């Protein structure tokens, strides 16, 4: 197992109190595994990604441990994390489009970045990786403004994995891209894993269909907690948690027409995490909810590798 997260709790400090963005998340990630992380906005998926690499000033580590390759990640200590960032844990940010320094040509920027981390620039290796994601060599001598969105995205991907990190967090990397670019970027990510540039990956997205194509395991989060985690095929074909089922049912696919099959959204909205209600957090929107749901359901392993937090599953 390359990553162990146990009982991780991260809160956001606000004027009105702590927002419990992550409330006891536990999961594992194997070597060479791509974990797709899905959920609605505000369910804590980006927070989880951020907690593993850098907590911003508003975030507070309340409890829980993160162990990567047998070493504990000091996620609460911003300084100590510097030894791990980029080398062990790396990130492709949500807005990779604006992550490149606009005043430097790409070649210079990459060189400066590596020097700041005490590594030398291996141009041959860089170019080999650029070939792999389909970027022409000329890109190195251009400014970011001269690249298209998809090219910038792929450039950032190459840069963030240059030091062969053990864990890569890809946060909504394809959300702003067109379908054909999206496919190219998703395949490039798979290629990185297969070539061993990254050992394991957390792919954060809200698109279940896309995740299904690249992830080995899919984890669904709801209101700061794990709802369901299972191998990708199992989760899509035989989901056990009512939230996962509703989420998949609400997915319009090519071939589904309003006139023939009417899809339904999920009524209501997730609870406020400022003062979350006791018990199952999906209770208010759940069609199956009953009396036992007033108590928080534990995460149970219903089949090998298939974890569900629901009394009814």
């Amino acid at each position, binding site marked *: 197992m390359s990553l162990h997260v146990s009982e991780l709790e991260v809160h956001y400090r606000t004027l009105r109190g702590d927002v419990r963005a992550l409330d006891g998340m536990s999961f594992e990630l194997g070597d060479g595994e791509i974990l797709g992380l899905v959920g*609605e*906005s505000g369910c804590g998926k980006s927070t989880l990604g951020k907690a593993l690499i850098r907590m911003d000033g508003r975030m507070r580590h309340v409890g829980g441990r993160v162990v990567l390759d047998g070493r504990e990640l000091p996620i609460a200590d911003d300084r100590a994390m510097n030894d791990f960032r980029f080398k062990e844990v790396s990130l492709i940010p949500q807005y990779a489009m604006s992550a490149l320094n606009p005043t430097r040509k790409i070649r210079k920027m990459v060189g400066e970045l590596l020097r700041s981390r005490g590594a030398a620039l291996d141009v041959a290796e860089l170019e080999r990786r650029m070939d792999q994601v389909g970027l022409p060599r000329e890109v190195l001598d251009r400014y970011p403004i001269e690249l298209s*969105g998809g090219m910038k995205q792929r450039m950032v991907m190459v840069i963030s994995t240059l030091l062969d990190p053990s864990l890569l967090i890809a946060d909504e990397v394809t959300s702003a891209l*067109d*379908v*054909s*670019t*999206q*496919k190219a970027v*998703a395949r490039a990510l798979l290629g990185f894993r297969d070539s061993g540039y990254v050992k394991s990956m957390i792919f954060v997205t*809200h*698109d*279940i*269909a*896309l995740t*299904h*194509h690249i992830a080995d395991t899919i984890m669904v989060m709801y209101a700061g907690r794990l709802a369901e985690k299972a191998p990708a095929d199992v989760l*899509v*074909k035989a989901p056990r948690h009512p939230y996962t089922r*509703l*989420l*998949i049912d*609400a*997915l*319009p*696919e*090519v*071939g*589904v*027409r*309003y006139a023939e099959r*009417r*899809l*339904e*959204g*999920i009524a209501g*909205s997730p609870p406020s995490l400022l003062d979350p209600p006791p018990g199952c957090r999906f209770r208010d929107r759940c069609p199956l909810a009953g009396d036992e749901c007033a108590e928080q359901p534990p995460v149970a392993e219903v089949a090998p590798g298939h974890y569900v937090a629901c009394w009814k599953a």
Partner: protein
Amino acid sequence: MMLRLDHVTKVFRIGAFGGRTVTAVADVSFDVVPGEVVSLIGESGSGKSTIGRMILGLNPATSGTITFDGRPARSGKEYYRHVQGIFQDPFSSFNPVFKADRVFAMIKESYRPDVPAREWDERVRAALRDVRLNPDQVLGKYPHQLSGGQLQRLLIARALLLDIKLLVADEITSMLDASTRIDVLNLLAELKTRGLGVLYITHDLSLGNYLAERTIVLRKGTVVEMGPTGEVFGGPLHPYTRELLSAVPRLHQEWTDAEAVETCLYHERGASGGLLEAGPGHFVACARLTTC
């Protein structure tokens, strides 16, 4: 025929002194009839939003004509009574210092000063119920207190208070969660049955497919294929449409690569020869089709 675009072209001047030009939309013609959803599909830079903005009168067309009910479309109060637009980002569509009821009051001031206040209030509530919002929950709230789905529905309700015949919906569900965007789509489908024409602009093929009677696929400002949605999605003729469809991630199917086309003019710059009618109402711009 309600809205008709005839050979519409839009050329933008770019560069420091407008020295260079970019053709965003080139020779596009189509129409929208009442009670129909037409989806306009294309990647970024295909000109789909520019077409929407031209229909709304926000940008003038460089050449060609846009007519609405036989009269040229031009911005102005009379036109906006019948044609309204909704855009991608609901959070920036509202003035953050106005509560929701103020937004509706402004509609009354500009368009319906003759309606008595009490009746207007009833109409606002009816329009909100039409878009599945509870009036008591949203009126009196600031935009930041409402969710994206609620805001987007408020905008639709606002449009419904006018004698709206055509709605230009530009990526209205892109910023919404999977759990709420389908509600907004269902709402559009319902309004359609009441005779509203909708131009649904999107880059998401599955959403366009769900809703629309007709689909127009744009590439670099030109129409590459248009026709009944079932035929465009079920039997795409243009290689570009095929490629787009094969790139859509689907739940129970592996990604496939569209079969390669040996020589194709679409790689260069669309097809210039105009559209061929491949079936009833199904048009395609593929130079190869004439020879094969």
